[in-house]
């Protein structure tokens, strides 16, 4: 279905905010000066963080992929408990649906964007970096690029739903 990306971003704005917040948190963690943060806006990109170049390349990479961890964990924690009554037992309350919306919105913005991937690419290929770093990071960037491109086929939504629904199912499957 043809839906402009910025519209999806607006509908799932909690994920955009958490995504940008995650970038900012990792910048703080590595003492990387932040010049500007836009948590959400009407346009493309829907949010951004402008920061200085980190001292280490691995910090640069972690700032880029930080939202993947933060959004995935937070989205899972919020949506997974609500998904059990809704999906498994068909007894969801409005609160459960709100939690699922919030969790899926956050988890679907876990994937670093193409912009994140490009900045990581530049960090390892346009700056001085060791062969080991290049070998280690290039496939990661490749996967991120694929993930970002896959969002055109709703891969991000599938990931968000997977985290919200798949995670509790996996836990239940392993524990049962």
């Amino acid at each position, binding site marked *: 279905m043809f839906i402009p*990306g910025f519209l999806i971003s607006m509908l799932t704005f909690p994920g955009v905010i958490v995504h*940008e917040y995650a970038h900012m948190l990792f910048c*703080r963690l590595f003492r990387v000066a932040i010049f500007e943060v836009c948590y959400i806006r009407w346009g493309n*990109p829907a949010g951004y963080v402008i920061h200085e170049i980190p001292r280490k390349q691995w910090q640069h990479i972690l700032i880029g992929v930080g939202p993947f961890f933060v959004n995935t964990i937070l989205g899972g*924690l919020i949506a997974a*408990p609500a998904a059990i009554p809704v999906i498994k037992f068909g007894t969801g309350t409005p609160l459960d649906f709100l939690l699922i919306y919030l969790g899926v919105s956050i988890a679907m913005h876990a994937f670093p964007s193409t912009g994140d991937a490009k900045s990581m690419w*530049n960090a390892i290929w346009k700056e001085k970096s060791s062969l080991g770093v290049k070998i280690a990071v290039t496939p990661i960037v490749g996967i991120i690029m694929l993930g970002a491109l896959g*969002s055109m086929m709703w891969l991000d939504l599938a990931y968000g739903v997977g985290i919200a629904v798949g995670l509790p199912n996996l836990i239940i499957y392993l524990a049962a």
Partner: protein
Amino acid sequence: MNYTVIFVQTNCSGSSAVSHIHMFYTQEEPEFRHTFPYSDSGTCRGCGKAEYEEGYQTHLCYDCRAQCLHLPVPVWIKAFAVGVITLTCIGLFRMPKFLEAGIHYARGLKAESHKKYATATREFERVTEAFPNSTENNVRYFLACYHSGQMEKMDWAYQKVVGQTIESDDLFQQVNTTIEGMNIFDRDTAFVRQVSKIKDDTSDAVIATYKERLVKAGHEVAVEFELADKLYDRGEYASADTLAREVLKKPPDAPQVLYLLYAINRELGKYDQAMVYCDHALALNAEDSVAIKGKIRLNAFKKEQPGETLSR
């Protein structure tokens, strides 16, 4: 000027257009001149002090960098964060209970697939504590109770299921088959009410009443079964066997008929045949306690008689 700002490319699909932007610069970048009034000439670009932190491409002193690290967060973002944290706490608070129910449900399904209905009943019962109005769980609980012969619990589940929409065709079919099977043995007719008063009476007069009823009303499974049971109580095993086997043809998976046939054949000394009925009952419910006890008893009988061969 040499700075690069990387934006996300616009795409027109279900894409998230989220980015963080990395800025690469050397000397001057007009957009941030207001942030850094001092030029990059070996001093802190924030305050102009001679000292700046080493290792960074952007020359900032410790204080100026600390200021950049803690840009003011808008109030509405703080409110949003409080909301998200609150909802996360609510989710985490409810998680153990829901996960536990989910695990019991999964175990129930596993037990059900292995026809371990006593276990399935226990597991689905645990789910009803957390989700008493889950139709799917109540339906499975009802079926498990039926197969494990726990009729009181089954009545509770039945009341919960009545009037509910069952979405799964397979479950719906199973419920219908079960209710049909129950109705065969649970006819509320005037005759049944009459004979219930003489339930333990096995006198000739009562047997005659049953036979008369069968002649008048034709083959009525519930009456035939009751009569076979009474014939068994009177020790007329051969007649009881013939009648019970007729009954078994109508609802082929009725455990109570299998129990009766097992008992009849045991009394007749046909241990192998009795074992077949126990196995049949166990195939319907792998945890059928009557059938398990029956097999143990039969094996004990067999051991007393050397020369007999064990069936299955």
